[in-house]
C-alpha cells in the first residue's frame, strides 16, 4: 500500500499543480515540491524498517498488488527490494532538487510544467517499482510523453528537434522491448500453460538458450539506448543540452538509471542463456568510458560537455554490471547513485550559469570565479566529484568497478582505468575555461541565491556519504548480487554467482 502511495502522490500532485496555476502562478512549484518531499520520508521509513533486506531473493520489503488487465494476465503489481528502494529514494530526492532548481527558470505555464515534472517522476518510480512486465513497459513508455513536453516546451533554442529525436530513439527501442516481453510471455505460457506477465513467474521460464538470446536482444535494445551505451547514445547530447535544467537533471540523474536498473533487474536474471553477450557488453562499456570522455573534452557548450561525461560514467556502470563479479556490481550500484547526484548538480549549476549569462558557450566565459565565487566553489566540488576524487561516491564506484573488472579481464580493466585520466582532463578543463583566467567579457552577474545554495548543499551530503561510508549500499549490492545472478564476462572470478533460474531451466 505504501508503494502505491509513493507512486500516486506525484501523479495526483501533478494534477493539483496544474489546476492550482489558476490561483497563482507560483503555487504549482510548492505543490510539486511538497509532494516529492512527502515521498522521501516514506522511502526512508521503509528503508529503516527493513535494514537487512537486499534483493528479491530475501523477499520483498513491500508489495502491492491490484487487478489491472486480468484477461491479459497483467496485474498492477509493485514491489521493492533494497535496490529499488535506493532508486526510488534517489528519484524522490532528485525530483525535489529538480523542482527547486526550476524556481526562477520557469515562468511560463508553470502549472503544466510541474504536471510534466511530476508525471515524468511517476513514470520513473513506476519503472523502479513494477514487478509486472507489462506494467513495467507501461511505466517505461509513460516517462516519455511528459519528458517530451519538458524538452519541447521549456527547452532551449533547438528544442523541438531534440525532443523528437529523444522520443523516436526511446520509443523505437521501447517497441523492441515490448516485442521481447510478449515473446517471453508466449514462451512462458506455452511451456507452463499460465499466461502471466508476473516478473517472479517469468523468472522461472524454461527456454532454449537461443530463444533466450533473441528475446534478450529486445530488452538490451531498450536499456542500452536509455543507458546509453555508445552506438546508441546520439539522442543524449541533444536532449540533455536542449532540456530545461529540471529536465536535464531528471534525464541524467534518473532516466539513464532506468536503463541500468532494467539491465540489472530484467536482462540479466531473465535470460541466463544470454551470458555470451556479457563480454561484448563489457567492451561496449569500456568504449563508452573513453569515447564519452574524449568527446566531453572537445565540447564548447557546458551542458553538452556534462552530457558527454554521462556517457563516460555510464560506461563504468555497464562494465560493472557485466564484469560478472560482486565487486564490480557493487561498484556499479554506487556509481549509479553518485553519478545521479554529481551530474544532476552539475546540470543545476550549468542551468544557473545559463540563467545568468544567457549563454552556454565556454569560450565566452572565463574569470567567473571572482564574479560568482559561490557558484564557482560549488562547481569545483562537483567537478572534482565527477573526476573521481577519493572521498566522493564516484571514486568508490569507479574504483570498485575497475577492481572487479580486473578479475574478469585484465586488458579491459587497464583500458577502463584510462578513463580516470581523461575525466580529470575534461573536469579541470571545464573549470579552467569557465571560472579561471581573465574575465574578458566583463561579466557582472549575481551569485547563487540562498535557495540555490540550499539545493547544492543538499546534494553534497549524499555524495560525501557514498564516498566516506558506502558500506550500507555495498551491503545491499552484495545481497542483490548473490540472489539475482550476474553472469560472468570472462568466466573467471564468479563462483559466488547464484542463479535464480533453476538449473533445469537452462536446458
Amino acid at each position: 500500500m505504501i508503494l502505491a502511495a509513493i507512486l500516486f502522490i506525484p501523479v495526483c500532485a501533478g494534477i493539483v499543480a496544474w489546476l492550482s496555476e489558476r490561483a497563482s502562478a507560483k503555487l504549482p512549484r510548492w505543490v510539486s515540491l511538497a509532494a516529492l518531499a512527502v515521498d522521501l520520508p516514506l522511502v526512508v521509513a521503509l528503508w529503516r524498517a527493513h535494514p537487512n533486506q537486499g534483493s528479491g531473493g530475501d523477499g520483498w520489503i513491500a508489495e502491492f498488488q491490484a487487478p489491472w488487465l486480468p484477461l491479459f494476465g497483467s496485474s498492477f503489481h509493485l514491489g521493492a527490494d533494497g535496490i529499488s528502494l535506493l532508486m526510488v529514494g534517489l528519484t524522490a530526492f532528485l525530483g525535489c532538487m529538480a523542482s527547486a532548481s526550476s524556481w526562477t527558470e520557469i515562468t511560463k505555464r508553470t502549472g503544466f510544467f510541474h504536471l510534466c515534472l511530476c508525471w515524468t517522476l511517476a513514470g520513473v518510480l513506476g519503472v523502479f517499482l513494477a514487478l509486472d512486465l507489462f506494467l513495467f513497459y507501461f511505466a517505461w513508455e509513460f516517462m516519455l510523453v511528459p519528458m517530451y513536453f519538458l524538452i519541447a516546451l521549456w527547452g532551449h533554442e533547438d528544442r523541438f528537434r531534440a525532443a523528437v529525436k529523444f522520443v523516436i530513439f526511446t520509443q523505437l527501442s521501447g517497441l523492441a522491448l515490448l516485442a521481447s516481453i510478449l515473446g517471453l510471455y508466449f514462451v512462458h505460457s506455452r511451456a507452463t500453460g499460465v499466461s502471466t506477465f508476473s516478473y517472479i513467474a517469468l523468472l522461472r521460464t524454461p527456454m532454449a538458450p537461443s530463444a533466450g538470446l533473441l528475446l534478450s536482444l529486445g530488452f538490451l535494445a531498450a536499456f542500452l539506448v536509455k543507458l546509453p551505451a555508445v552506438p546508441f547514445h546520439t539522442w543524449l547530447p541533444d536532449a540533455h543540452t536542449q532540456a530545461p535544467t529540471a529536465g536535464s537533471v531528471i534525464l541524467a540523474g534518473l532516466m539513464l538509471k532506468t536503463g541500468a536498473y532494467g539491465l540489472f533487474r530484467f536482462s540479466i536474471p531473465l535470460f541466463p542463456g544470454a551470458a555470451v553477450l556479457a563480454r561484448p557488453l563489457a567492451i561496449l562499456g569500456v568504449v563508452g568510458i573513453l569515447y564519452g570522455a574524449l568527446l566531453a573534452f572537445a565540447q564548447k557548450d557546458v551542458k553538452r560537455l556534462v552530457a558527454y561525461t554521462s556517457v563516460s560514467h555510464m560506461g563504468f556502470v555497464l562494465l560493472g554490471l557485466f564484469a560478472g563479479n560482486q565487486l564490480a556490481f557493487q561498484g556499479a550500484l554506487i556509481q549509479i547513485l553518485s553519478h545521479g547526484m554529481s551530474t544532476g548538480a552539475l546540470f543545476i549549476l550549468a542551468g544557473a550559469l545559463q540563467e545568468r549569462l544567457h549563454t552556454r558557450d565556454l569560450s565566452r566565459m572565463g574569470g567567473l570565479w571572482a564574479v560568482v565565487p559561490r557558484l564557482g566553489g560549488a562547481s569545483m566540488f562537483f567537478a572534482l566529484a565527477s573526476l573521481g576524487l577519493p572521498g566522493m561516491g564516484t571514486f568508490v564506484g569507479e574504483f570498485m568497478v575497475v577492481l572487479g573488472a580486473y578479475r574478469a579481464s585484465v586488458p579491459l580493466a587497464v583500458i577502463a582505468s584510462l578513463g580516470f585520466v581523461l575525466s580529470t582532463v575534461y573536469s579541470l578543463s571545464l573549470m579552467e575555461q569557465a571560472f579561471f583566467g581573465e574575465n574578458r567579457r566583463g561579466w557582472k552577474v549575481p551569485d547563487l541565491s540562498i535557495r540555490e545554495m540550499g539545493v547544492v548543499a543538499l546534494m553534497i551530503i549524499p555524495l560525501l556519504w557514498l564516498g566516506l561510508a558506502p558500506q550500507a549500499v555495498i551491503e545491499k549490492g552484495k545481497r542483490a548480487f548473490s540472489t539475482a545472478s550476474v553472469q560472468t564476462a570472462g568466466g573467471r572470478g564468479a563462483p559466488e554467482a547464484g542463479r535464480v533460474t533453476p538449473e533445469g531451466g537452462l536446458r
Partner: protein
Amino acid sequence: MPPLLPLLPLMVIAAGPVLIMIGLAVTRSHRLTFSITLAAILGALGSLGVLLPLVPTQVGLLFLFDGFVLFYSGLVLASGLVVAVLSYDYLKGREGAPEEFYLLLLGALLGALVLIASRHFVSFFLGLEILSISLYPLIAYLRDRPSPIEAAVKYLITAGASSAFLLFGMAIIYGLTGTMEFPEIGRRMGGLVQGQLLMPVGMVLLIIGIGFKLGVVPFHLWTPDVYEGAPAPVAAFVATVSKGAVFALLLRYFTEVSLRDRPALLAVFTIVAVASMCVGNLLALFQNNIKRLLAYSSIAHFGYLLVAFMSAGALRVFAVTYYLAAYFVATLGAFGVVTILSSREGDADEIGDYEGLFERRPWLAGVFTLMLLSLAGLPLTAGFLAKAFVVASGVGSTLWLPVLTLVGASGVALFYYLRVVAALFREPGAPAKRVAGVFGGPVFSLRGKIVMGVLFVLLIWWGVYPAGLMALISLIGIGR
C-alpha cells in the same frame, strides 16, 4: 418467413430517412431533422440491447447476429452519432440546405450495419453499395466548392472500379463452390481439386475489392484526396464507419474461410500490411495538410490492423476489435477538432492553422494532443494498449516480418504526429483567417463539447484501466 425481430436495428435506422423525408415535406427544419436522426441512432443503439438475449441468431441466408455483430454495430452507431453531432454545428454555418445530409448519413449507417451482419455475398454487396452510394453525395455535399466535387468523383470512380473487381471475384468463387454463404464457401473450398487456378484468382479479386475500400497499399491512392476534399465530419465518417465496417466483414469472411491454411493468401496479406505501414507512414511525413496527414496515417493504421488480422488464436479478434475501438475514438476526436476549428472559408487543415492553438484554446489543443498521441500509440491513451495487443497477437503467431515492420513504422510515425503536437504548442504566428473562433466565426456548441469530452474520457479510460472494455470484447467472438 424467418422471425424478423433481430433486424430491429436495421429497421430503426431505415425508418429514420423515411421520417425525415415526411418531415421535409411538411417543413424544412434543420433542428427537427437532426432530432429525428439522433432518435433513430439512439433507437438503433437501444434495440441492440433487445437483441442481446437472442444471439447468436441467423435471419434467412443473408444475416447473422452474434456478439461480434452487436459490438461492431454499437461501435458504428456510436460513431455515427458523433459524426451527426459534429455535422450539425458544421452545417449550420454553411451555405445550402443541410437537411438531406442526415438522410444520407443514416443511409450510410444502414449500409454499414448490413455489411457487418452479412454472412452471404448478396448482403455483403448490398451493404457495400448502400454505404458507397450514400457516401458519394455526402463527400460532395458542399457542392458549390470545387474540392468536394473532385473528391466525390475520385471516390465514385475508385469505388465503382473496386465494386467491379469484387463482383468478379464473387462470381468466380460462386462458380467454383456453388454457394454464396461464407461458412459454406469455407467448407467447400477444402474439397476443391488441388492446383485449381481459378480459386486464388477469385480470392485475390475479392481482396482487391476490399483493399480499395480499406484504402490499403497499393489501393490507397484515393484516400488522401477524398479526406482532403470531403467536409471534415464526412472524412471522419469515411475514416471510421466506412472502413471499420468493411474490416469487420473482412474479419468474418476470413474466419469462415480460414486464412492459416492458405499460405499464399497469408503472403498476399503480409505484403499488403507491410506496404501499408511503410508507405502510409513515409508519405505522411511530407504532408502539411492535417487531413491528408490523417489519411496517410489511416493507411498505416489499417496496416497495423492487418497484422492482428493475420494472427491466429484467441487474441486475434480481441486485438483487432480493441484496436478498431481505439482508432475510432482517436480518429473521431482528431477530425472533431478539425471540424470545430473549421470556418465558413474552408476547413482548418493546414498545420500552420494550428500554431499556437494551446495559447488560444488550451482545452481543444489538449484534446487534439491526446488524440494524436493515441494514434501514435503513446501511453495513457487507448492507442497505447491497442498497439500492445496488436504486437502481442503478432508475436503470438510469430509473424516476425510484420511485427518488426510495425515497430519500425511506429517510430517513423511518431515524427509526424509530434510535428503537429509541436505546432500546437509553438508561439502563435498570425492565425489564418479561416480558423474559426479567431475572428468571430462559429464557436462550437455545448453538444460538441460534450461529444469531445466523452471521446477524451473514453480515450484515457481505455488507455489506463480498460478491464471493462476488455471483458466485453473478450465475450464477443465470431459465431458466438
